[in-house]
């Protein structure tokens, strides 16, 4: 059942990616609508997979890299659906859905067995901490994709190549706004994830902060997005500069999530 749901999700996401990429080449409205439908179906199946795994495992299925990559992908698709509805810009899918697919494909590379929980993970904070963290990461992922769209659009404007893709991409100020809106969700979620992690660490390890690589890198991420949010208050940090910083921020998010787990040893080394 679990494997079937997983592969169905994968198939639907592959189809959605193909549709959205062709939408990029030939922006016909019907392609956008088909992509939208596929993503909605894919999201539901993926959600079903996650819930099923929750029931089978008996705990929040975000305890190893396979599970967390899958949940990350689910969170990105969910965030995309919300923003796509709100801003009615199907083209967002051409950038975000391939990213979600890529992350789900990465999860295949890690053991998909349901592992019993190690003692430190047996806590009610597991749900709060991991779900907040990945919803935050997902918001940052959408901000990243939108920032790339911003840079492409501003490149078109500069070169005066106002082709069909230019017509489909939202105007610069809307892209800037979406990217910023994502941060206004991502940053609070990241903060809540760090705080809930500190409370958990206090009960499990006897200290709310121990400069473990995961803690430090999540703080680094927090510093960068805090800088970006404060930078927007001054003039000149919107638009391109903000887009570049958001891209940098997401690279750091990826390192905080994957790099720390795979390259560094510490209290958070869950594979």
């Amino acid at each position: 059942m679990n494997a079937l749901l997983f592969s169905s999700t994968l198939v639907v996401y592959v189809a959605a990616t193909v549709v959205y990429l062709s939408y990029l080449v030939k922006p016909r409205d019907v392609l956008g609508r088909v992509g939208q439908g596929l993503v909605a179906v894919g999201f539901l199946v993926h959600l079903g997979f996650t819930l099923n795994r929750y029931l089978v495992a008996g705990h929040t299925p975000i305890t190893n890299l396979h599970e967390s990559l899958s949940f990350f992908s689910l969170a990105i698709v969910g965030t995309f659906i919300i923003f796509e509805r709100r801003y009615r810009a199907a083209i967002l899918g051409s950038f975000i859905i391939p990213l979600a697919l890529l992350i789900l494909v990465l999860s295949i590379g890690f053991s998909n067995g349901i592992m019993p929980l190690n003692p430190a993970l047996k806590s009610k904070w597991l749900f709060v901490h991991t779900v907040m963290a990945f919803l935050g990461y997902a918001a940052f992922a959408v901000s990243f994709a939108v920032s790339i769209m911003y840079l492409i659009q501003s490149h078109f404007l500069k070169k005066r190549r106002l082709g069909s893709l230019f017509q489909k991409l939202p105007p610069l100020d809307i892209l800037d706004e979406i990217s910023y809106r994502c941060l206004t969700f991502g940053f609070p979620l990241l903060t809540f994830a760090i705080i809930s992690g500190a409370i958990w660490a206090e009960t499990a390890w006897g200290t709310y902060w121990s400069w473990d690589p995961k803690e430090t890198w999540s703080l680094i991420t927090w510093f960068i997005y805090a800088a970006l949010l404060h930078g927007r208050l001054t003039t000149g940090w919107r638009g391109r500069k903000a887009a570049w910083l958001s891209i940098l921020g997401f690279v750091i998010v990826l390192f905080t999530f994957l790099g720390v787990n795979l390259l560094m040893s510490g209290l958070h080394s869950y594979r």
Partner: protein
Amino acid sequence: MNTTKRGFAYQLWDFFCSLRLSIFLLIGLALVSIIGTIIPQGNPPQEYLQTISETKFKLYQQLGFFDMYHSWWFILLLYFLTLNLICCSIKRLPRVWKIISEPVLVMDDRFETSLSITRDVKMTGAAASIKDQIVSFLKQEFAEPVVTEVNGEYHLFAQKHAWCRLGVYVVHFSIIIVFIGAIIGSFAGYKGYVNIPEGGSISRVVTRNGKAVDLGFAVRCEKFSVAFYDTGAPKEFKSLLTVLENGQPVAGKQNIPVIVNEPLTYKGVTFYQSSYGPSDEGASYHISVKNRKTGAATQITARQGERVALPGGAFLSVMEGTADVRPFMKDFDGPGAQVEFTPPGGQPQPFVILGDKYQSFNEQHGGDLVLTLASLDQKFYTGLQVAKDPGVLVVWLGCALMVVGICMAFFMSHKRLWARVTDGSVTFGGSASKNPAGFELSFDELMQKLNKG
């Protein structure tokens, strides 16, 4: 002289008030924090010298890279950040306070052009009656307006969530509270580690700084147990702890199970399950020895490392053992021991013996004898992390404030509405501190409701 002095003070003030400094400090802190995740922190010098040269080691030591998050320059950066956010808040707070406490009550032509959302609505009746209509409408649908009369025109002003503008300052303040909590913890608290063998007790703890701290009470480990999953991965570590005052158990603090995520706290000192190991005493092994030919069986008990004589002139010593072999041997469970068996006049033979479930396994060795491990009494010690941190509550207070402040700053918006009522028409204006697009939608909904009503 006086002017330059004053000039310098102003420059210093401006320097600490600047947003550029905040951004510089945030990015700077992010960059230097990376160092401590690449260079292992707090290892003994020998370990560093295995991977880096001595000159590099000395340089890093001078720079404090081996305990970088407590180095003077990192702490200094944190103090600068604190100073910066205090100054920024002091500078900007009065302005924000003015927006909240002294709102613009009258929308004149010039103010109207500065608003991004304005609508003109035609209504029937004289100004005074329209005013009453709008007042009750806004009271019902938005917030109670303040009415000002200027030259026969009525000016209405209503606002919602004005105080959410303070969210940013609540967050800044909460960061300072967290820092204060951390400072209290570092001066008035300690962290240490103790091993208590089963049945033993301790009343002193050696802290990480090498200081011995008298607890003022004692903690006894009644029992330690470890459980495994079928995969061999650890499932639960559990210590039963009893707190003793003057050698007497404290009521309500006896045989308290302490597992990971569920520590024991007594008089501000918290004990966390952290590790375990076999105690120095070693285990006692109960082994049944059966003669293959006669079928005669005897029971012997051997301590770890002890050389025991067996019937028929053989000798046996148990090297090590475990109550559960699953983590070490796939497809087997129960007790197991690594033994060294010396047949009469022969060479020592090392092999493994298991419980009575695995007779055929045990029959593979032992010459004339079949050795079966009936049971073992393994004594453990429990490894406990001991922490006293009177600053923790302050840190939690800061965190709670931060959550409140962040919700105010990110999820709430200060919404304001103005209306200028003249005979037969009303001009509305609106502004929101956040998400202008979303506000425009709800503004339009409000206008539609007014038209219908």
